[in-house]
């Protein structure tokens, strides 16, 4: 039972990161390899808000969330926008260097010491007993809640809102969408801001729950296996994929080798590439388009 709880918690974290990959990929066919570093940035933004301006949680958390979103928007406006028309691979490499720059900026500002934002906010993280001998930390529970809310809201947003519908149209038939006067630049900017917002949220939760260090970005790479297993262009696929990958990882930690668990998401990715490269719920034609 405890294992099931761990799986759901880890899957929630992966889902939060995974939707970011999907959002950016759907919009611009670019894989944002800086996602993990943007997540780390979110955690540090919370830490910075708590320490440097000594804000309480009620101010610091919204501030850090806004900062996360704004960073994504700025990255698009200043850097990624210029990559339009370049090969996709070049754009992906730019995101790699963005990741490096974010990491370096964080190290320069906060040093590479391990940080804990929660004490800085004067908050505690008491364990919650769920019965049947299962216990999770409060932030674990919050992570699950946040992931559920974010995925549900995003699904609704894409289905119902005007921008969401435009995003789907642009993802499906870019040329037709552009001819109908959809503003691609705005869509891309929104996608980037949303992706970095969800990544930042994941970073805040993870950072508060475990720790903050500049090397957190690796977690983002693992989550990216989730995005691919679910199908890079499918938001709904993220949830089952996150559960699957998290289950494999948690169960290998429990019954196998912890070192092996570290690479298990990548093995899931390889298996998926061989069996069903378009993912659990992705579209098959997608492979031809890249």
């Amino acid at each position: 039972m405890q294992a099931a709880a761990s799986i759901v918690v880890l899957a929630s974290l992966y889902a939060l990161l995974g939707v970011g990959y999907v959002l950016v990929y759907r919009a611009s066919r670019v894989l944002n390899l800086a996602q993990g570093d943007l997540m780390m940035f979110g955690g540090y933004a919370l830490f910075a808000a708590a320490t440097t301006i000594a804000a309480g949680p009620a101010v610091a958390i919204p501030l850090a969330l806004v900062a996360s979103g704004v960073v994504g928007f700025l990255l698009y406006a200043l850097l990624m926008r210029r990559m339009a028309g370049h090969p996709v691979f070049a754009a992906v490499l730019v995101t790699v260097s963005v990741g490096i720059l974010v990491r370096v900026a964080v190290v320069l500002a906060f040093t590479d010491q391990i940080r804990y934002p929660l004490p800085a906010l004067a908050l505690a993280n008491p364990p919650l007993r769920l019965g049947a001998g299962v216990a999770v930390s409060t932030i674990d529970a919050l992570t699950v809640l946040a992931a559920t809310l974010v995925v549900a809201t995003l699904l609704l947003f894409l289905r119902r809102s005007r921008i969401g519908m435009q995003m789907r149209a642009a993802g499906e038939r870019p040329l037709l969408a552009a001819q109908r006067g959809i503003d691609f630049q705005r869509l891309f900017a929104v996608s980037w801001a949303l992706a970095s917002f969800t990544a930042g949220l994941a970073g805040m939760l993870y950072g508060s729950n475990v720790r903050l260090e500049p090397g957190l970005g690796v977690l983002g790479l693992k989550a990216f296996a989730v995005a691919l297993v679910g199908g890079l262009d499918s938001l709904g696929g993220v949830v089952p994929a996150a559960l699957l990958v998290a289950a494999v990882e948690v169960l290998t930690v429990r019954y196998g080798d912890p070192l092996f668990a570290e690479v298990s998401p990548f093995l899931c990715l390889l298996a998926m590439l061989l069996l069903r490269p378009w993912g659990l719920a992705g579209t098959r034609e997608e492979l031809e388009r890249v």
Partner: protein
Amino acid sequence: MSWGSGAFRTSYERDMALVDTPLRWTALVLLAAVLVALPAVASRLVLELLSQVALAAVGALALNLLTGMAGQISLGHAGFMAAGAFSVGMLVEAIAAPPWVTLPAAALVGAGLGLAVGMPSLRLRGLYLALGTLAMHYVILWIGTEYQARYGFNTGVTVPPLALGPLLVRTTRQWYYALLAIAAVATFLCVNLTRSRVGRAWMALRDREIAAASLGIAVARYKLMAFVASAVMTSLAGAVWAYQRSFVSAEAFGFNVTIEYLAMVIIGGLGSVLGALIGAAFVTLLPYAIDGVVAALPVGDGAQYYLFPLKFGSFGLLMALFLVFEPRGLVGLWERARNWILLWPLRHRPLAPAR
């Protein structure tokens, strides 16, 4: 391109020549002479650095072969390198294998991995492929770490010096010559490929796969070939790396190594052999240059702390700047500068005359 320079290609032999003009011949001979004579005057540090550049150049050339020439994306370069280094380490540890066993074995492992990674490339394209190579990188590193943990080499595996028959490579100077020779052979092979059937098929694939296929190029075969060739070369570079450092450890092949090699081919100029060489030199020497600059500046001891992020960040920044502003890299910059000088005071080349 004709500027009326006086050097014309008047025969097919001339057109196929590896080194084109008399000026280039002179430059090449001069460069070779300087490099060969250098140990007589240069300090150990300089030789040490140039050896590193030569070794990095082999890796960069291999990546350029795959990404620059054949247009297949790989994010698993460090993984291939680790595979080569670990096949040396494991064989030395298990049966005290001599280099004439370990080096072919490393090449063989590289070929196998190249095939394994290349297989999905027949079905997948672009990004999906890059992801496969990235995943492969982590799996290879895991195998290395697992081996280290299981057999008690937590810090790493020690490798004896490289001895091929009577030839023993041990000192800095010996390594300098050995690596220089290896890099020269690798460069020759890569330049030669550009005029071979295989190299041209790769370039055609890179530029337009469908057109290449309809010209009768066996897409699947040539793609696999590109992966195998690049992986073999990279894996051998990793094996030589193991002998040079006399030490193998999984920590030395993190994802940032892949990024470093990507930075080399991008900063140098994707698809150009010269670019790979220049990029390898640039990326290898940049950290030392930053060290030198910081040491020369009047800053306190606190600066030491910022040195590592500064070096790492400069890679990131340069990579981004080159990708956005000059995708053809340093070679592209050089061509622009050359055109500017040749055309001065005009700005553009004359339009082609009507035929």
